[in-house]
């Protein structure tokens, strides 16, 4: 049995590898059914979807095209620049295409709202959202999300692509970090 490298930092496992696997399979089945006869473009937001998106598309039973977008997020460094920047834009044109936008987690909806406005301007035939995790308690912008993996309470979660300071993305499960890891003490 391999030792969990981060075991000392994780307070609780919220979703096990098996639970994630099953839920992703269900989502893929539902999406494949909804997009029958279509070849959607699956757009992922880097870097949080690095585990979710590959697993999702491998379980889909329809042809898909895949692209990625990355945007700057708010930080003390970016605050004076004032606006979101697209760090990596899409390579594929979206005009008249069915687009499924894939997120790791939607909480406030601020980033998603910005990105959807950006994508809508490219005139896709349809635009839907799929998120692995949905944190409703923190929602500021109401955005209809068609596919939700798991509803989660407002914990700081890591693993399966989600990070804290770029770490923990490679955890096979989704877990809550100990307060001592986040704040030193609580």
């Amino acid at each position, binding site marked *: 049995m391999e030792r969990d490298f981060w075991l000392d930092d994780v307070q609780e496992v919220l979703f096990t590898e098996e639970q994630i696997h099953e839920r992703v399979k269900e989502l893929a089945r539902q999406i494949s059914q909804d997009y029958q006869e279509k070849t959607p473009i699956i757009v992922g937001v880097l870097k949080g979807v690095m585990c979710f998106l590959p697993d999702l598309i491998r379980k889909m039973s329809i042809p898909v095209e895949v692209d990625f977008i990355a945007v700057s*997020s708010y*930080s003390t460094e970016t605050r004076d620049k004032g606006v979101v920047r697209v760090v990596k834009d899409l390579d594929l044109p979206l005009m008249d295409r069915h687009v499924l936008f894939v997120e790791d987690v939607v*909480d406030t909806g601020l980033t998603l709202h910005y990105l959807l406005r950006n994508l809508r301007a490219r005139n896709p035939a349809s635009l839907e959202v799929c998120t692995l995790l949905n944190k409703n*308690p*923190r929602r500021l*912008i109401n955005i209809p999300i068609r596919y939700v993996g798991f509803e989660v309470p*407002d914990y*700081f979660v890591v693993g399966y692509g989600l990070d804290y300071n770029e770490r923990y993305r490679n955890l096979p499960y989704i877990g809550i970090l100990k307060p001592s890891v986040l704040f030193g003490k609580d």
Partner: protein
Amino acid sequence: MRLIDFLENEALESEKKFPQFVHPIEEVFARILDFYGIQWEYEPRTFPLRWDDEGNVLEAFTPDFYLPEQNLFVELTTLRPRLTTKKNRKLKRLKELYPDINIKLFKRRELRNMMLRFGLREEVERIIGTDAQEMDE
């Protein structure tokens, strides 16, 4: 327009945009909203909650932010949960008296997690640390 007038106007606009916030967390929140292009107003409306027999307002509540595009009021609190009784009571009363008002309370942990997601660990420690408990909310 002369340059001096332009600069004065800019300063006035900036002052109008960034009012004197009561709590540092409010300024961080406003900057985050600006970054994502979300319109906001700071404390634009006060809701009376209790009156005396003559109709004088005894108690009122002023949410921190209003997001006009979302028609949503937002209240932020950095107080520990055990210290938020008064605020919770006011919010409950607000919802009873003004059922059509959409308001969201961002609690200490939610704010902390939001700021951590944005990589603002130092801000978290500065704003939501022990010292923040001393501030009157």
